[in-house]
């Protein structure tokens, strides 16, 4: 290893785990050297904690500063950052948590992903009106590129909403499985809960299903006419919400 490579490895080991090997390389008296290196050790943790706090503001609020700090410290010690942008630090923070807090962490990270996901254009009613009725069955719809899904079994989303609205958090609730669709419309993030059959329909669209495929899926549990009505109702809603992408 070159002198420069050794020096850098030693500094990094100092910052990550307090190794002392670098100390003889640093100019100054022993006590002063420790103080000087300590500025880097402190700054590293402070900066990552700040980044985690920005990615997880509601979680920090729910846990309280001290508990959040402890979770952040454990995470920082287990997962040093590898991305070029600090914005991507903290994706797996939920692993340090249990129950509602773990779901809240996943939820906030997902909101962050949607916030700066790739831009996309949404299909409009006018686009659809241009279609001939005979084109409908073969119509292949695709989800807007910002769309993400999330499953919860606690009231993590209700807690997030309460915290965002600055009202007291709701009490814990008995487990209930809910699906959420999260997306962005222009620059504002939207979400709503969605029933399981609609989630299945979204997944089918993701896999390249046509409008006729959606109707056929639904027709297993209802008449063909009801299935077509249901699919048309969904489609109208999805387009109104901006969930369907325009073009390919």
């Amino acid at each position, binding site marked *: 290893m070159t002198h*420069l490579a050794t020096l850098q490895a030693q500094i*990094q080991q100092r910052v990550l785990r307090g190794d002392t090997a670098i100390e003889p390389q640093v100019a100054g008296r022993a006590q002063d050297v420790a103080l000087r290196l300590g*500025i880097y050790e402190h700054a590293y943790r402070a900066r990552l904690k700040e980044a985690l706090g920005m990615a997880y503001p509601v979680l920090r609020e729910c846990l309280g500063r001290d508990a959040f700090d402890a979770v952040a410290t454990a995470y920082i010690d287990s997962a040093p950052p590898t*991305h*070029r*942008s600090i914005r991507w630090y903290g994706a797996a923070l939920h692993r340090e948590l249990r129950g509602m807090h773990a779901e809240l962490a996943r939820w906030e990270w997902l909101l962050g992903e949607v916030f*700066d996901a790739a831009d996309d254009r949404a299909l409009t009613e006018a686009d659809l009106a241009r279609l001939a009725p005979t084109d409908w069955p073969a119509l292949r719809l695709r989800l807007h590129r*910002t769309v993400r899904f999330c499953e919860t079994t606690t009231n993590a989303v209700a807690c997030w909403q309460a915290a965002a609205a600055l009202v007291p958090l709701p009490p814990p609730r008995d487990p209930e499985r809910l699906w959420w669709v999260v997306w962005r419309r222009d620059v504002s993030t939207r979400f709503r809960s969605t029933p399981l059959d609609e989630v299945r329909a979204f997944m089918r669209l993701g896999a390249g299903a046509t409008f006729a495929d959606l109707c056929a899926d639904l027709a297993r549990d209802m008449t063909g006419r009801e299935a077509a009505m249901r699919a048309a109702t969904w489609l109208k809603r999805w387009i109104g919400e901006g969930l369907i992408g325009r073009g390919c």
Partner: protein
Amino acid sequence: MRQLGFGLGLRPDHYDAVLDGAHRIDWFEVTTENYLVPGGKPLHYLERLRERYPLVMHGVSLSIGSTAPLDFAYLHSVRELARRIEPEGISDHLCWTGVDGVNLHDLLPLPHTDEAIEHVAARVRQVQDVLGRRIMLENVSSYVSFRGAQMSESGFVAAVSEAADCLLLLDVNNVYVNSVNHGFDPVSYLNALPVERVRQLHLAGHSRRGHLLVDTHDAPVADAVWRLYEVAAARFVHASTMIERDDRIPPLADLVDELDHARRLAASALEAAA
């Protein structure tokens, strides 16, 4: 980079204030990594801003001094962003940020040795080839210096810029902070740098920790730094000035007032020099 006048660092807190109305701000410096995202609000605002102001891209993760391999995926994303917003300049720091696949997100100091000069210069040339232009490297604040230094910090900065044929972004606050932390004369530092290469000046606030100064960017520019800025403004006539503020961010109007102060000091320093 051409002379752009007096600018500010763009901060998300100020997006709406900046786009709402006219301000005495000539240009903006944007943190490159904040805009290396697929889409959404950051890029939306950046493009609105670009329609009205010259921009300079300022990176924090190039890690030009690291002994880890250059990250070409990162460099290509920087080039892509530059294609999109056509910045007046692209800068990063004369430092390293990690090795072994880790990015410590800190600007770590290099030893002032011939080995480091050679290493950095070779990498700068590669970066400049990819980006198709000269970059500006910024002197960083530091809290340690290494035994076995072969030259002063200013000698190191000047030698890197010559060997790499790159430009310099002179952070006046960092010079002052280091002059206290390592005990050197900050004016001699400025005099050691090649005038032609210094194209941008940074101003920022610092804070005190014991007998050391820490580059915190959380306060107004200190008086001692303003005095050093007068010397820098008179010497580095090609350099555009900007104020960095990253923490305890005040309303935009306060920063515009601080920038006016820089304008007045620079004008009188230039007049006195003439």
